Each structure stands twice: as structure tokens, then as C-alpha cells.
């Protein structure tokens, strides 16, 4: 079953060219089926509580090669998020004006990105992680450049150049760690890291750098706004919603948990970088005039939150970070869905040309409000609970100053999102936009789904906690053994 997480999307991608020849219409349904399958399976695992006090492990020999996979609480959350976000991305793409000719290729790339992310999530050693990371990255380079226009190329190029630097350093770090521990699986690495020493610290630095760059934390975020803005609307949903989160944030959490432990040196740095990203990201978002660009900076800021939660170094902080990771995937893809809808309907993303759309696009308007409130951490939406847990964790861990920062950054968050609301949705309809109509249901249903998830995982927080976060909690105990 674990292997299916990797193989199903891979196969889906592989049959795409064939399907294109024999059954053009079927190409649409394959990615939908694959993602729905992933949601259902993951949801079932979560619901059954299979990984509540342990993990699903797979260790099998195939063709003289050992294959070790694992699914625990953390991977569960990630897999669910991947499934959900890629599902809405695919749904959104159905009506998005892509070249019909190239559509199967596009779907294949998305499925490959999913493959990469799934693989990364279930992998048990650093090198495999690296490989899957590369799949995700390369697939996203191409997807960003999909429109083949100047902006897309530029965004893709920047992403690639910086990402290449990151992967080089990641590889070097892997090599260094491999050299001193003689293995690349998490268990072996963790043993080696305990010995300490300068090499370990250098590899810490490299890994930290690589992952910070991948996740787009300040000051390594340069590529992020351009990449998000330049990509086609559905791609930016995927990219902002999940790709960078898995590539950067999930990896960071996983490595901290499995390899580094809550090392205070590492944690302090993470805390500072997280706080800087949170605050500056929010401030930069405040000055934007482009819908997607604002959301991109918002992503930077939110990732800062996750990192701060992680850096609290307590179980509570971990839960907060993981939950915020999940929530962020949901509400950020929701907001990008909204931006895509607005762009589809009006043909622009510039605030100066928009205004009062809530009247004409009620569904988009309402869901965007939900996304906004969840991002800003206003109860009873899901974003509130995760932020709350992060703040409580920071305070309880003694990082009082950072708790303050976390709290006040949410005001700036609210400020820029209100700016967005004011300029796009909430207000009198702008001249020239009177003829705008709501986008088609295929486009707005994904938004409704995401909004519903945000609302219900906020209101039913106890349930979410039981099914999704408790496994994470138990994970710590598991690792300590």
C-alpha cells in the first residue's frame, strides 16, 4: 500500500501518452482518480487510527535492492494535504485554458510532482529524499514555464538557479554525513549526529540553508514571489499550496525529528529565521499590488510561523507546526484558487483594476473571506487553532519575545489581507467590471471544498486533533524509544 503512493501517480503519468492516443477524454479523469484515491486511502488510514501509536513500515527486497518505506503521523498529514491540494489543482485545471494538445503532458507532470512528493514523504533515508526532491523540483520548473511566456521563463529560471544551489549544498551535506556515519538512512544518521563535531555542524548549516531556500524563508526567498506569480494559475495553486511546503517545510520537520533532534543551536537559528520571515514577509505583502504576489509573500510569512512552531522544540510546538502546515496548505491553495478565479473572470490580478467583486462573484468572495480569516488566525477557523498552539508552545518553551512576534505578525497578516479584500472583493463594483460573472462551478467548487475543510477542521478541532495530530504527538514517543 505504501508503495502504491508512489507507483499509482507514476503509472498514471506513464499511461498518459498512450491514453492521449486512444481516449483523449480519459486524460482528464486519470489525475482526478489518482488524487481522489490518495485522499480516500489516506483518510481511511487516519480515520481507522492505524498509525495512532505506531507507523506503517515496508521493507522489501526487490531485484537485490532493499526498499524501505514508512508512514507515520507526520507523513499522514502530509499525504492528506498532498492529495487535497493536487485534487483541487486538477479540478481547477479542467476548465483552465491550457493547450488541449499539451494537456496530457501537463497532467503527467502534475502526477509526477505528486509522485515526487509522496516519495519524499514516505522515504526513510536522506538520499531518497533528495532524489524525490529533485523530481518535484524539476517537475515544477517545467510547470512554471508551461505557458512559455517571458514571465514564466524568468520565474522558472530563478527558481531553478537558486534551487540548484540549494540541492548542491544538500548533496554535499548528505555526502558529509554519509562520510562520517557510513549510512544515509535516518536511523544511521541520527546515531552519527549524536557524536557531534564540526562536520556535523557544517552539514547542519548546509542542510539548513538548502531547506530554508527550498521553503522560501528570508533571506533565501528571492525566487519565490517570481515563481508563484509567473506560473499559470493552477500551477501556482499546486506550487504554493503544497510543493514548496513538502520540499522545504516537511523535509525540515522530518529531519529535525529523525536526525537532528531538538538541538538548541539548530532550533535557535530556525527561530530567528522563522521570525524574520514571518514579520518581513508580512510587511512585504502589505505593499503589493498584485493578487498573487501578495499571496506569495504571505506564504513566506506563514512558513515562518511553521518554523517558529517547530523551533519551540516541544511536542506542543510540533503539533502546532504540523497543523499549521496542513492548514496552510488548505487556506493558501484556497486563496490561490480565488486569485485564479478572479484572473479567469477579469483577466487581471492588479488591485488597481479590481474592486467590489464580491457582488458579482459571491462564491469566490465568500470563500476568499474564509481563507483570509483562517490565514490571519481568526477563530473559529482552522488557522486560529494552529496559530494558538504555536503561540502557546512558544510561550511555554520560554521564547516569550518570539511569542509576541508571532502574535503581532498576525495583525500585519490581517492588515494585508484586508487590503486585498478591500481592493478586490469588498466594496463597490469598479467601473468597467459590471459585466463580470461568477466563474463556472468547476472552478469555484474546489474553492468551496477548501473553504469547507478550513471551516470544519476549525470547528471540529477535537476530531482533527484525535485523528491527525495525535499520531504526530505519539510519533515523538516513538522516536524517543
Amino acid at each position, binding site marked *: 500500500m505504501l508503495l502504491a503512493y508512489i507507483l499509482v501517480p507514476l503509472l498514471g503519468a506513464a499511461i498518459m501518452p498512450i491514453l492521449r492516443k486512444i481516449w483523449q477524454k480519459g486524460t482528464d479523469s486519470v489525475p482526478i482518480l489518482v488524487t481522489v484515491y490518495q485522499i480516500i486511502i489516506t483518510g481511511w488510514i487516519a480515520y481507522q487510527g492505524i498509525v495512532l501509536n505506531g507507523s506503517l513500515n515496508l521493507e522489501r527486497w526487490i531485484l537485490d*535492492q*532493499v526498499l524501505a518505506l514508512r508512514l507515520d503521523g507526520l507523513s499522514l498529514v502530509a499525504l492528506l494535504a498532498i492529495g487535497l491540494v493536487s485534487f483541487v489543482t486538477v479540478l481547477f485545471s479542467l476548465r483552465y485554458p491550457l493547450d488541449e494538445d499539451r494537456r496530457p503532458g501537463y497532467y503527467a*507532470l502534475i502526477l509526477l510532482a505528486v509522485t515526487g512528493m509522496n*516519495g519524499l514523504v514516505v522515504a526513510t533515508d536522506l538520499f531518497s529524499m533528495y532524489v524525490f526532491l529533485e523530481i518535484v523540483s524539476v517537475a515544477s520548473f517545467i510547470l512554471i514555464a508551461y505557458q512559455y511566456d517571458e514571465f514564466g521563463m524568468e520565474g522558472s529560471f530563478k527558481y531553478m538557479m537558486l534551487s540548484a544551489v540549494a540541492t548542491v549544498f544538500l548533496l554535499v551535506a548528505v555526502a558529509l554525513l554519509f*562520510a562520517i556515519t*557510513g549510512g544515509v538512512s535516518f536511523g544511521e544518521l541520527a546515531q552519527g549526529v549524536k557524536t557531534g563535531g564540526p562536520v556535523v555542524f557544517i552539514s547542519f548549516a548546509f542542510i539548513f540553508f538548502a531547506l530554508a531556500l527550498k521553503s522560501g524563508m528570508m533571506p533565501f526567498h528571492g525566487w519565490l514571489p517570481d515563481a508563484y506569480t509567473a506560473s499559470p494559475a493552477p500551477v501556482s495553486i499546486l506550487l504554493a499550496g503544497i510543493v514548496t511546503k513538502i520540499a522545504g517545510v516537511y523535509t525540515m520537520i522530518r529531519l529535525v525529528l529523525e536526525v537532528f533532534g531538538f538541538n538548541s543551536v539548530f532550533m535557535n537559528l530556525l527561530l530567528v529565521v522563522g521570525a524574520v520571515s514571518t514579520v518581513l514577509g508580512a510587511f512585504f505583502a502589505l505593499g503589493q499590488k498584485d493578487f498573487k504576489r501578495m499571496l506569495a509573500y504571505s506564504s513566506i510569512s506563514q512558513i515562518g510561523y511553521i518554523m517558529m512552531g517547530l523551533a519551540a522544540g516541544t511536542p506542543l510546538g510540533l503539533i502546532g507546526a504540523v497543523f499549521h502546515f496542513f492548514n496552510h496548505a488548505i487556506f493558501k491553495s484556497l486563496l490561490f484558487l480565488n486569485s485564479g478565479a478572479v484572473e479567469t473572470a477579469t483577466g487581471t490580478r492588479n488591485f488597481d483594476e479590481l474592486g467590489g467583486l464580491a457582488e458579482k462573484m459571491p462564491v469566490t468572495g465568500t470563500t476568499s473571506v474564509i481563507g483570509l480569516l483562517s490565514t490571519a488566525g481568526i477563530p473559529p477557523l482552522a488557522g486560529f487553532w494552529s496559530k494558538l498552539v504555536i503561540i502557546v508552545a512558544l510561550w511555554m518553551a520560554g521564547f516569550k519575545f518570539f511569542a509576541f512576534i508571532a502574535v503581532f505578525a498576525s495583525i500585519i497578516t490581517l492588515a494585508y489581507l484586508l487590503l486585498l479584500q478591500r481592493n478586490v472583493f469588498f466594496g463597490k463594483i469598479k467601473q468597467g467590471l459590471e459585466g463580470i460573472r461568477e466563474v463556472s462551478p468547476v472552478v469555484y467548487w474546489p474553492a468551496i471544498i477548501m473553504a469547507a475543510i478550513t471551516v470544519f477542521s476549525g470547528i471540529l478541532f477535537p476530531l482533527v486533533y484525535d485523528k491527525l495530530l495525535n499520531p504526530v504527538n505519539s510519533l515523538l514517543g516513538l522516536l524517543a524509544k
Partner: protein
Amino acid sequence: MELHMVLLIAVTLIPMIIAAFAAELIKSVIALLVGSVGLTLVLFNLNAPIAGIFELSVGAGLIAVLFILSVSLTRPLAKEESAERKRQHYRRFYVLPIIILFLGLILYLNKDFWINAFPFTGAQESASFGEVLWGRRGLDLIGQIGIILVGVFGVIVLFRRGKMNE
């Protein structure tokens, strides 16, 4: 360290730096391509043929294709403008040499430390390294299939678009 190794590293690094500094995209991309080829050779030399092939296919092949395409889409600047850009370009880059020098300085000052820091001594343990590297990589095989697929689809998708534009 053998001489041809040093040469190879030089062949890799120099184009890479040029790629980073070049003001014109086309030069940059070509330099990148050359650098990738150098890297592939280094990898072959280090008994890592699959990695080498991968580097060649993705780094040199796919990405270079991608960028040559993108460059071909852009419009060249007028002469004066281009000169002006260039001047600004280099001015913006003054940070990088400083950083590189700084990095070098640190590395140089800690020379002994670095040498001592690496506990491995090379050939003796290469067997076990090899085993670890190549014996347990079942998952990576799938991954590499994925990468190849990505490359294929990428080329298909982008080329098709490129052709349509022409």
C-alpha cells in the same frame, strides 16, 4: 588528488562561475552546459555512473534545452541599452566576489581543521561506500524513472509549445 581530477574540477567550476556572471543569457546557458558536462565527468571518475548519466541528461540536456528555448523567445536589447545594462550588471555583482573571497579565506584559515575533520581516508572503505550507495537504492530507481519521465514530458510539453510559437 590526481591531476586529471583537478583539471576536471576546474573544467566544472570555471564555466559555472561564468554562468553566474555572464550578462547575456545565451552565454550563461552555454557555460552552464559546459559545466554540467564537466560535472558528469567528475561523477564518472568517482565511480558514480548513474549519477553522471543523470546529470548529463537533466543538467546538460533538459535544462539547457529549456533555456535555449527561453532565450530564443526574448528580444535582444539595443546596443547602448545593453552596454548600460552590462555596467549596472557588474556593479550589482560586486557582492559575489567579496563573498567568494571571504569563503575562501575561511576555508584557507581552517585548512588543518578541514583536513582533520574528514575521518575517511579514501580507497579502503570505498567498497562499503559502494555497497551502501548502490545496494540499497531500490527506491531511488523508481525516483529515477520519475525523473526521466519528467524530462520526457518536459521536453514534449515545452517543445510543442515552442514549435507552435514558430
